[in-house]
């Protein structure tokens, strides 16, 4: 198990610090949903408890529907790998208000820490770049993370960031899991009906 990389909870907390109301966040199922809940519940979070491989595409639909707001998908390497084609789809549309952030620990943490394809060498930053997303970051330390937070604050082009995190499982923080309630409160928070 790797000891390299950032603390996932601290990384999420930094990205969500002083969060403005125009930021809409879609985490992937599993650990990134717990990380986002741990950073503080928010009506503008749409937690996923399933739909593996769908987080980035939910982000795309939301970003196209809400061009005046910023959308951040924060998901894990395993979830991103299941829907890798989404990066090609997003590369075609390139909404300016969409950021795809992948917390990459190289393992499937939810299922027993089995190594993922990124551990075996799959390079998500290279994939995103090859799909036409020109603003790509490989976040390896605190300074990079602060730069990512700045770029998220001032989002002006489709952004992809891979954040190297340690393979560890902090205590789970379980948010609301009623899908209808999550949808209703999200839509009410941004004023769509």
């Amino acid at each position, binding site marked *: 198990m790797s000891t390299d990389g950032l603390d996932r909870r601290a990384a999420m907390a930094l990205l969500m610090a002083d969060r403005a109301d125009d930021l809409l966040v879609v985490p992937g199922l599993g650990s990134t949903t717990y990380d986002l809940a741990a950073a503080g519940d928010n009506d503008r979070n749409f937690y996923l408890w399933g739909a593996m*491989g769908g987080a980035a*595409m939910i982000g*795309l*639909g939301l970003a196209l529907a809400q061009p005046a707001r910023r959308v951040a998908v924060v998901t894990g390497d395993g979830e991103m790998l299941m*829907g890798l084609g989404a990066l090609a789809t997003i590369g075609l549309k390139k909404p300016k208000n969409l950021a795809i952030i992948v917390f990459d620990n190289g393992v499937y943490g939810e299922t027993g820490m089995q190594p993922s394809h990124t551990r075996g060498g799959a390079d998500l930053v290279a994939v995103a770049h090859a799909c036409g997303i020109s603003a790509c970051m490989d976040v390896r330390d605190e300074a990079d993370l602060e730069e990512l937070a700045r770029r998220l604050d001032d989002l002006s082009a489709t952004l992809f960031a891979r954040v190297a995190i340690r393979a560890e499982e902090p205590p789970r923080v379980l948010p609301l899991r009623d899908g209808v309630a*999550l*949808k209703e409160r999200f*839509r009410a928070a941004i004023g769509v009906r």
Partner: protein
Amino acid sequence: MTGATVPWADQLFDVLKRGHVRQVGYVPDAGHSRLIERCRADADIHDVALTTEEEGVALAAGAWLGGMRSALLMQSSGVGNCINMLSLPRTCRMPMLMFITMRGEWEEFNPWQVPMGSIVEPVLKLCEAHVHRVRKPEEVAPTAEQALREAFNDERIVAVVLSQELIGKKVWVK
């Protein structure tokens, strides 16, 4: 394109426009080619070419969270690709409007289209979709309008299955 004065793909496009559908996801498909062309040419519609149909299910969920209506165009083979992702609109009770062109039935040349084509309707029903079957051009617009109302007013999964006899057989030797 027999019988009706307006080709069925154009009827469908008009229904989508009148119904304020602003995102259309699709995997390129011969049966849907005219409708895809119309959507791509419309500046008010975000046409989203997908690498696999399940992306379109997630796209529609995101669109609905953001207050925008979305539709998904696919061929019958794509239905199988959507099964797990349909958990999203099922769990969250979101609209999911799908238009599915059939293969594997009327005058099909390619037997590889039959296994998925033959189970499209039961699979959709198991996924709690309301399924409408269309065989004739004059049924397209009223059925699509009904499907659109059901999907967006009731927040449910609705599939319009367009029969191969409506679309016409694929020409294999040109």
